């Protein structure tokens, strides 16, 4: 049995996803949160195995939220669920500690599969191509490249800090900055006048 928490700001998506996950044997949706604010109390109460997390949320986006979720010990697996799920999201997703990436246009079977795999500890992310790495490299500072490299090789934070001779906190800060620079821009709504 895999216990799942859903985070999506859109009510239709929350109810749809809950119904679809409930219909699949072995998957148990526990609750659905509409925002980062709703997430924390629910997370502490339910202790899910997998969080299905919308990328685009009001306030902090899915990547920022994922960073914070992953700071918890033990942390649930995070499946990023996005309308913008293309390969260019892969590197920022890896940096944020995302375990899987699924498009909102994908059929239910793909989500079932992804949920099961991340719950087993697998990664469901597109392979990172040379081109993707090159274009990410152009957006980052030279001293950030080793952090990217070690993250992609799953080096633990403490080891990274030891190798680079800086405090783990400093590394975490840098990773936050790197994510901010690399993430896919979601167009903002027009300011109401």
């Amino acid at each position, binding site marked *: 049995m895999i216990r799942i928490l859903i985070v999506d700001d*859109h009510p239709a998506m929350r109810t749809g996803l809950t119904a679809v996950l409930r*219909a699949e044997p072995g998957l148990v949706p526990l609750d659905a949160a509409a925002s980062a604010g709703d997430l924390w109390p629910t997370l502490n109460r339910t202790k899910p195995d997998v969080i299905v997390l919308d990328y685009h949320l009001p306030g902090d986006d899915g990547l920022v939220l994922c960073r914070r979720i992953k700071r918890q010990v033990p942390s649930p697996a995070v499946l990023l669920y996005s*309308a913008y799920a*293309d390969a260019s999201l892969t590197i920022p997703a890896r940096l944020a500690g995302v375990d899987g990436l699924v498009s909102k246009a994908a059929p239910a079977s793909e989500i079932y599969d992804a949920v099961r795999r991340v719950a087993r500890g697998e990664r469901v992310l597109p*392979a990172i191509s040379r081109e993707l790495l090159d274009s990410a490299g152009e957006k980052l500072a030279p001293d950030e490249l080793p952090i990217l490299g070690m993250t992609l090789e799953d080096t633990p934070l403490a080891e990274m800090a030891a190798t680079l001779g800086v405090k783990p906190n400093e590394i975490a800060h840098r990773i936050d900055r790197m994510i901010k620079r690399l993430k896919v821009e979601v167009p903002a709504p*027009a300011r109401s006048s």
Partner: protein
Amino acid sequence: MTLLLMTRLLAAGVAVILLVVHRVTPHDPELIALTIVYTAGSLGVLTLVPRLQLSLAAWLVDSVAALALVVASEDWRSPFYILMVTTLILPATGLPFRRALVWGVAFALAYLGVAVYTEVDADTLESTIRLETIATHLMVPLVVVLALAYAADVLERLRGERLRAERLAVESERQRIAWELHDSAKQRVHAAHLVLSALHGQVSGDQGELVAHALAELRAAGADMDTSVAELRTPLEGRSVERLLGERAAELAPVSEAQISVRGSLGELPAHIAAHVYRIGAEALTNAVRHGAAQHVDVVLARNRSSASIEVCDDGRGLPPIRRPGSNGLRSMRARADTIGASLSIGPGAGGRGTRVSLSLPTAPDERS
């Protein structure tokens, strides 16, 4: 022009009355006839050919003609003075502020010339009065030009401001619609697609086909919305597909080692079809450059009597045997092709190398060919 019409008729009236009441020259009747003919003629021509209202040559002809009337009246204290001042209206409202001032000064100098030319000797007291009168005669054109040029300048600026405000309003409205489409309607379509897709595979036979059909429709609706959102955010604005693909290629060129060429033309397409075709072509091009590790990417567009086609070929590593998880691009290309009734084929390129994406859509005959 209304201002010119009114003041010139008034000025001509004043000139005619002065000529009738005072004997000014020995040839007053001819001058009256000339005034009427010139006033009617100049106003008629300027009204019928509005282009001339902004023509430097027309302004010059008008000024010289009025000046000639002043000279013909043999004294600079002429019944034609006001008529002469009306020739300033068009240049003062048509020229930028500084040039209008230059025109006004030139006018005053020309009038001074006429005054010197037509001056007759007289005694000292008269000279003083005369000096004052000539000063007034020279100042009036400057005041007229200043006032008109200032007013015209303010009007022009107001018009510009209003245009800008309208453009901004349209722009923010587009962004708002795009946002609502994306944030609300599309989320519901995604949700409906997701729920229905859970049924797929559980029902079989005719009902299974119905579900598959509904799923395809929902995917197409999603793709339609994507295109509308993209079109609302960065509209094609009537630019051709080949030009936009060329621009996309130029954007991609600096971040890739591939040589990209875009050839051929699709001719005229209805706007929403062109939008879908462009987004399919752009996605294929981007995939080839980003994921295909290609050395060459060729985009060929063609149009004949009954169909239009785009082919994007690269010599890269080809399609991955298993779809990349989370990849949305191919799915949305197919859904877009469905929406516009085009056929899309994606497969290995010639000789099994690279990738070949080809889109073909039936069209009405191109009006240009």
